[in-house]
C-alpha cells in the first residue's frame, strides 16, 4: 500500500471512529458509570515534515460499577493503533511490536476497591505512584515505564500498570501506611532498534549483533554465532515486589517514608566471550540480567502559608537504591548504589502564572570498576559519578481556562537540553485540541542530546464522553 493511501486509510478510520462515537451514549445509572475518549496524536519531525514520529489512534473506555457504597469495580479498556509504523519505512519492521495494542494490554487497569474511613484495599491491575517530581522518576519506580516515546508521554500514559494488592490503613487523621504486594513483574519497556526513540545504546548493540551475524554467515568456523538469553524474573509469588510507605502531615509539613524491595525494572547486559587469542574474544552469549534491589526513600512538601516567603511551596524527594545492576567495560556488570534526589520550588508568580523549578542530582557510588568506566544506560557512554539536572515548568491559562499553555525545560549538566512547549484548547466540553513541540539539544552521549535529530511538532485531537 502506498504511503499516502495508508495515511488516508488511517485518517478515514479515525474519522469513522469519531463520528460513530455518538453510539457511545454516556450511560450513567446510580451504580454504573461509563466514560472514555477517542484520541489521535500525530507527531512529525521538524526537519522533515513528512516524516511521521507517530500517528496514534486510541479508544478508551472507563467503566465503574458500585457494588455497595464501600465496594467498587473499575476497569479501563484501551485499544490503539499507530499508523506511523505503516507510513514510515524506517519503523515498518517494528509494526508488530510497537504499532498496536499487544497481548492483554487492552485491559489497561482492572481492580476492586474497598473503602472505609480507616482502611482502603485495592486489588487488581493498577498504577501506584510515589513521589512528586516533574519530568523525572526518582521514587516513582513501583510501576515500570514504557519508553517507546522516551519520556515525552504523560507519565500516567507511559506507566505500565501491574497486578498487585494495595492496602492502606490510617491509624491517625492524615497519617496513612501503605503496603504493596506485587506478584506481577514487568520490566521497563525499551524500544527496539529502528523505532522513533531508540536509545543510542540499543542501536549500537543491535548494530554490533548484526555485525556478528554477518561475520558468522561469512566465516562460520571462525565466528560461531551467539545466543541471547533474557533472565527476566517470572511472575510468581516468590518474585513478588514488596513496598511500604508511611505518609503523614505534621503541622503542615507533609512527608513520606518509602521502602521497596524487588527485582530491578531495568536490566544490564552481560556478555560472555570466547577467546580467540590472549587479548581478543568473540561474543558468544548476551544475557539480560536483573538484580534484586532495595530502595529506601522519602519525600516532603511544605507550603509556606505565612511570612516573607508566603506562597512558595518547597518539596523534595530522595531515593537510595541498593544493588542496582550497571554495565561497565565491555559487557560486564557491577552492582552499584545510587542516591537520587530532587528539590523543587513552586510558586504562582503573577495571578495565574505558575512557575515550578527543580534541581535534581543523581549520584552513583562508583563510576569505574577495575579501571573500566561504568556506562550510562541509555547511551552507553562513560557515566558521570554525579549528574546534575535542572528543570523549569511554566504554565498558565487564558479565556476562562479554555486555552492552557505550558512549557517544560530540562537541563543536564553536560549542556544537555530539552524543551517542550504545549498549547491546549478546549473547543467544546467534549473536544480538545493540543499542539506543541519537543526540541532536544546536546551531545550524542547525553540523555536528550541523543535525540537531537528527533525534534518534533505534535498535534492532538481528543473527543471525550
Amino acid at each position, binding site marked *: 500500500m502506498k504511503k499516502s493511501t495508508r495515511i488516508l486509510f488511517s485518517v478515514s478510520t479515525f474519522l469513522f471512529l469519531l463520528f460513530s462515537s455518538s453510539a457511545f451514549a454516556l450511560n450513567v445509572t446510580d451504580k454504573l458509570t461509563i*466514560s472514555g*475518549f477517542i484520541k489521535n496524536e500525530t507527531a512529525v519531525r521538524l526537519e522533515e515534515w513528512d516524516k511521521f514520529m507517530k500517528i496514534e489512534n486510541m479508544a478508551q473506555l*472507563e467503566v*465503574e460499577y458500585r457494588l455497595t*457504597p*464501600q465496594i467498587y469495580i*473499575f476497569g479501563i479498556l484501551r485499544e490503539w493503533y499507530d499508523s506511523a509504523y505503516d507510513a514510515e519505512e524506517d519503523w515498518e519492521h517494528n509494526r508488530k511490536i510497537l504499532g498496536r495494542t499487544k497481548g492483554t494490554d487492552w485491559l489497561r*487497569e482492572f481492580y476492586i476497591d*474497598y*473503602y*472505609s*474511613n*480507616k*482502611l*482502603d484495599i485495592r486489588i487488581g491491575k493498577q498504577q501506584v*505512584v510515589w513521589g*512528586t517530581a516533574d519530568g523525572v522518576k526518582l521514587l516513582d519506580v513501583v510501576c515500570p515505564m514504557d519508553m517507546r516515546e522516551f519520556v515525552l508521554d*504523560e507519565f*500516567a500514559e507511559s*506507566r505500565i500498570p501491574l497486578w498487585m494488592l494495595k*492496602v*492502606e*490503613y490510617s491509624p491517625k*487523621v*492524615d497519617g*496513612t*501506611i501503605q*503496603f504493596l*504486594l506485587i506478584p506481577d513483574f514487568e520490566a521497563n519497556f525499551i524500544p527496539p532498534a529502528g523505532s522513533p526513540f531508540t536509545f543510542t545504546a540499543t542501536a549500537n548493540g543491535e548494530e554490533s549483533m548484526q555485525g556478528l551475524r554477518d561475520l558468522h554467515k561469512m566465516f562460520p568456523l571462525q565466528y560461531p554465532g551467539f545466543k541471547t538469553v533474557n533472565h527476566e524474573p517470572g511472575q510468581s509469588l*516468590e518474585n*513478588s515486589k*514488596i513496598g511500604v510507605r508511611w*505518609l503523614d502531615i505534621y503541622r503542615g509539613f*507533609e512527608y513520606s517514608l518509602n521502602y521497596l*524491595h524487588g527485582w530491578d525494572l531495568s536490566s544490564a547486559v552481560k556478555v560472555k566471550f570466547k577467546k580467540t587469542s590472549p587479548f581478543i574474544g568473540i561474543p558468544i552469549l548476551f544475557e539480560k540480567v536483573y538484580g*534484586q534491589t*532495595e530502595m529506601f526513600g522519602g519525600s516532603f512538601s*511544605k*507550603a*509556606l*502559608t*505565612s511570612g516573607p516567603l508566603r*506562597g512558595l*511551596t518547597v518539596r523534595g524527594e530522595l531515593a537510595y537504591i541498593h544493588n542496582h545492576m550497571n554495565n561497565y567495560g565491555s559487557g560486564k556488570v557491577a552492582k552499584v548504589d545510587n542516591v537520587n534526589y530532587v528539590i523543587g520550588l*513552586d*510558586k*504562582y508568580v503573577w*495571578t*495565574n502564572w*505558575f512557575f515550578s523549578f527543580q534541581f535534581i542530582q543523581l549520584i552513583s557510588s562508583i563510576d569505574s570498576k577495575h579501571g573500566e568506566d561504568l556506562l550510562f544506560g541509555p547511551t552507553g557512554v562513560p557515566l558521570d559519578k554525579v549528574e546534575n539536572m535542572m528543570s523549569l515548568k511554566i504554565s498558565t*491559562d487564558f479565556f*476562562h*481556562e*479554555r486555552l492552557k499553555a505550558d512549557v517544560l525545560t530540562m537541563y543536564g549538566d553536560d549542556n544537555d537540553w530539552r524543551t517542550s512547549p504545549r498549547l491546549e484548547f*478546549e473547543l*467544546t*466540553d*467534549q473536544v*480538545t485540541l493540543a499542539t506543541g513541540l519537543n526540541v532536544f539539544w546536546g551531545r550524542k552521549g547525553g540523555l536528550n542530546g541523543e535525540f537531537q535529530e528527533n525534534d518534533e511538532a505534535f498535534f492532538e485531537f*481528543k473527543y471525550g464522553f
Partner: protein
Amino acid sequence: MNRRKDKRYLKYGRMLVLATAILIFSRGIPFGEEGALLKKTPPECQKCCESMKPQPGMSADDLMRIKYYVKYTKFARDVSFDNVKNLLIDKGGFTREKDAQRFRIILNRPSDDLDYKDMITLTAPQNVKGLSVLTWSYLDPRKDQDIWLWLPSLRKVRRISQSEADDAAFGSDFTQEEMTSRRWDDETYTYVGEKKFEGFKSPYNGKTYYAGQDCYVVEAKPKRKNWYYSKRVVYLHKDFAGKIFDEIYDPTGRKYKVTLIVYEYWPDTKCIPQVHQECHNLITGHYTVSEIGGIKFNGDVDENFFSAKTLMRTKW
C-alpha cells in the same frame, strides 16, 4: 549467596505485611458504615444559628461575621454537595459545563488552628474528570490555605500554595477568594443602611430573584492595596445575613462585576444552603452559573476523608 539473602528479605517483608494485616483485623477495624470509627453526633443546625441571627442595630462588622458563618456553612458539622453544575457562558451564549462534587467539614479547632477542610472533585467533562482539590483553611487570618491537587494526567497528588486570590476559580468568573478563601479579616466594613433589593433578572433562566427583599447593605473595602477591586456593595438577607447580591468595583471605581447567591431555607433543620450562584462580568459579558444539588448536612463525613489518601482514590 546474594540470592539467598534476597529471598530472606522477601520472606521478612511478607511476614511484615501479614503481621500488620493480622494486627489491623484483630483490632476489629470495622467494615462498612455501621462500624465506622469516630462517629460523633452532629450539632443541630438551629442551635448554632440562633446565636448568629442578624438583629437591627448590629454593626457592619457583626453582620459580615454572620455572612461568613452562613457562607462557609458553619451552622453544620459537615456538608456535601453531590451535584454541582457550573456553566461558563460567554457573551454569544456559547456554554461550557463543568460538574463537580464538594464536601466540607467544619472543625473550628484551635489546637491545630484548623477552621475547616474542603474537597472539590470535578466529575465532568471527561477532559477534566477526576481533578480534585483538597483545601485546609486556618483560623489564623494571616495564614494562607494549604492546598493539595490531584492531577489525573500524572496520577499524582501535588501540594500547591494558595494561588493568587484574584485568579479565576476553575475558569469561572468567580475569583479564588470569592469562591473559597476570602475571610472576614480581609476587608473593612461600613454600614450603608437598610434597603429593599430591586431584584436581579437572570439571563440564564429568566427568573427574577429577591425582588423587594429587605436587606442590610454594607460597603466592603479590601485591606490589600492595589487589589483587583476597590470596593464592593454587599446586600445581606435581612433574616439570616447571607449575601444575596454584591456589586464589585474595579480600581478605577467602575462597577465591573455582580454576583448573585440564592439560598434555600430548610425549616426542619434551619439550615440555609446556597443552591444557585451567578457571577456576571459586566465588561466582557461572560458569566458563570452554578446549580448546586444533592445537598446533605451533617452526613457524618469523617475527617479522615479530607486527606491526600482520598485524593489518591481517584481513578481518573
